[in-house]
């Protein structure tokens, strides 16, 4: 009935110079950590959350990651990846990175009162949920607006909830929220859902979920928290309907987590530009996973990036 997850920071000697510091502990960072540790590099991973796994930790189940015939819990896959990497010697701490100094030969990572140093840096900070960009959105996060179904879904028992988006995340998270809520309405701006057919098929068996297509949320009014209203515009007939619901979960696109490297690394539409070795415009600074310019952002592609970048970093270090 109960799961218990344990992931603690390790004691780290701050005076050493690491071969590699990985900033961000999602699938790309953990895979790079696993490979780098197996290359016997002295590697430290810094993860802002207390739980490694990045966005995996906030996902109910994964069905398209090879090796699992049955859907695997995101939290379980994350935990397995972290344990595997640590078993080969990956060191990790759980802390917010305050700033990065990437310009010198020895790179510096400032964490609270401490500075960690390394010959190379790998940025695997991933992405965060995209926002709708409507008025009052930020104001009501945690008061009815959420971007994490596994976190906040249980807060809506027998409630009516809107899920915004039409991709795999939106559909899968709507199915998760329906375990708790009495009614879930998926609101998607397109003519049809973009999710995988296998996910869309599951909606047919879930009576609690309705889908509104060609629709988008134009405005919200949460001034009365017991009677939250949402203005929904239908683009096919331009009609605006006001509906009431208890909460809204948003799964529309992603925003790269690049605030730490802005002004230092070359970006394209906010994502980090890399060459075919996954090296950035600064020598010795690499990036991988969802945070880089790429076409497909999946756990499988992040893992592939992680393996490749560790190989390239190992080569880079051997040429120093």
């Amino acid at each position, binding site marked *: 009935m*109960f799961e218990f997850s344990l992931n603690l920071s390790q004691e780290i000697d701050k005076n050493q110079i690491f071969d590699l510091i990985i900033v961000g502990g999602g699938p790309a960072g953990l895979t790079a950590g696993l490979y780098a540790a197996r290359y016997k590099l002295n590697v430290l991973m810094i993860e802002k*959350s*207390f739980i490694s796994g990045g966005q995996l930790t*906030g996902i109910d189940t994964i069905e398209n990651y090879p090796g699992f015939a049955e859907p695997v819990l995101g939290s379980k896959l994350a935990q397995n990846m972290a344990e595997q990497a640590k078993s080969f010697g990956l060191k990790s701490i759980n802390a917010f990175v305050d700033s990065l100094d990437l310009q010198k030969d020895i790179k510096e990572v400032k964490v*609270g009162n401490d500075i960690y140093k390394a010959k190379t840096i790998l940025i695997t900070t991933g992405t965060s949920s995209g926002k709708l960009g409507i008025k009052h959105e930020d104001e009501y996060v945690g008061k009815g607006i959420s971007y994490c179904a596994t*976190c*906040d879904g249980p807060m*809506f028992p027998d409630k009516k909830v809107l899920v915004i988006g039409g991709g795999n995340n939106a559909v899968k998270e709507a199915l998760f929220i329906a375990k708790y809520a009495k009614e879930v309405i998926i609101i998607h701006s397109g003519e049809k859902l973009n999710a995988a057919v296998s996910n869309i098929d599951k909606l047919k068996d879930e009576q609690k979920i309705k889908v509104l297509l060609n629709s988008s949320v134009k405005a919200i009014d949460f001034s009365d928290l017991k009677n939250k209203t949402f203005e929904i515009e239908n683009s096919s007939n331009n009609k605006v309907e006001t509906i009431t619901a208890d*909460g809204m979960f948003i799964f529309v696109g992603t925003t790269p987590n690049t605030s730490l490297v802005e002004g230092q690394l070359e970006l394209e539409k906010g994502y980090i530009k890399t060459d075919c070795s996954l090296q950035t415009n600064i020598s010795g600074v690499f990036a991988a996973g969802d945070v880089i310019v790429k076409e497909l952002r999946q756990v499988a592609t992040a893992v592939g990036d992680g393996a490749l970048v560790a190989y390239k970093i190992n080569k880079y270090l051997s040429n120093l």
Partner: protein
Amino acid sequence: MAMLDEKIVSQLKELFKGLDKEVNLKFFTQELECAFCKDTHNLLQEVAASSDKIKLEVFDFQKDKEVAEQYKIDKIPALVVMDEKDRGIRFFGIPSGYEFTSLIESIKLVSTGKLQLKESTKDFLNTVKKPVHLQVFVTPTCPYCPPAVVLAHQMAYYSEYIRADMVEASEFNTLSIKYNVQGVPRTVVNETEFLEGAAPEEYLIEKIKAFL
């Protein structure tokens, strides 16, 4: 059946070798009308069995009313993590899922006294001379919650004026409704100020400043 699997128990035993001072777990429970008391009790027994430096004391919420009042325990299951001194660290509800990490972090903190707080945060906490009550609402499936709980507990450990509770939101639904918790983590500061998400130390400091 054991609550913790063998892998976690062996991790705990290894980790607890690094404990320094003895840690006192004061657990408040009752036999009836408490959905998660028995499971929490079992969990704490298994944690305490992993190190001879961890002592578990069990109190009945009704019969040991005076002790409950002394530690400001107003709901159960409740846990105080302390050494010879009450450090203001509380857990209300079962620390399962990702919150198990918060529990183990609090044991490490109390035993070793090792804080991760920034120097600027300690400077600020030195100026706090009025009681501050932090209630961090969480769910066990929220990966962003443990940093918020651990930060609050570290502040409580450092400042004798601060008391910090982890509150499992779905177990204490009435309280969640009272504080309008619809997303976690949500930190309630002295009943009237609120902080959403696992925010850096400076954000929580700003909220506490409202009461100084």
